[in-house]
């Protein structure tokens, strides 16, 4: 049995559920932010801060940021395990895939810290 050490939850079924739950959250967040941009006539710095600075939006943004990390990790892991295989990239596939996963992890780490610093600056 293959041990899926680099999947998010080490369980295909759990990853499947997490991918869909986070997709649901991210769709709701997208509609919410889109609704704000579409409904504001004169968008300026004050309106932006007033919207994203409310406690409700700060927590919603935090939830969306965390969902993005989980969703992107599962998605990028899936792509990596599908295409970075010995049949595609040769015998060093495991090393290449590990490096790819490390880059993804680093990017997501930067993203979450960056997002949280933007969200909670007020």
């Amino acid at each position, binding site marked *: 049995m293959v041990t899926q050490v680099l999947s998010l939850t080490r369980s295909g079924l759990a990853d499947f559920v997490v991918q869909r739950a986070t997709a649901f959250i991210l769709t709701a967040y*997208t509609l919410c932010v889109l609704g704000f941009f579409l409904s504001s006539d004169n968008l300026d710095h004050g309106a932006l801060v007033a919207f994203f600075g409310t406690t409700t939006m700060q927590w919603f943004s935090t939830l969306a940021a965390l969902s993005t990390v989980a969703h992107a990790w599962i998605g990028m892991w899936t792509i990596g395990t599908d295409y970075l295989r010995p049949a595609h990239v040769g015998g060093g596939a495991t090393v290449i895939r590990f490096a790819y996963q490390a880059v993804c992890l680093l990017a997501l780490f930067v993203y979450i810290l960056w997002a949280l610093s933007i969200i909670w600056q007020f």
Partner: protein
Amino acid sequence: MPHTQRVTLDRVTADGSSVWQGPPRLFGLNLETEVMKTDRPVNLNLFAMSWPIMAIASITHRITGVVLFVGVAFALYALDLAMSSPAGFAEAAALVREPFGMLVFFGLLLALVYHVVAGIKHLLLDFHHGDTLEGARMGAILTIVVTIVVTAVLGVMLW
């Protein structure tokens, strides 16, 4: 309508006959309890596949996912700048009006709309809506058409 996918371990050879690749069998029964094989047949050679519209819609879902993964950096940069100060907001607004900024803005909008629409289609498929051959073809076409219409409308409204 069964929703199970039959997985076969027969590998078709060049002369058209099939060769059993699984564990040894006796009258169709496995002689090994461990059936997971590391050399089980896989076909993910993207250049050897045929590309019906469902496959194009599917790979586009993946590509837009990768585009969004990279695009988050641009979105965070713009949001960070716009939230920092009124001067920063003006700077971000000017950036989006530059050719490269416009490319990123509309590229990300298109990728986001496609990924969400294709994701909703995927959830419907999870509940077995439209998972017949014709349903899947219709779903793929709808995903592409809805994406183009919604992106065009949003692009005009947001700009």
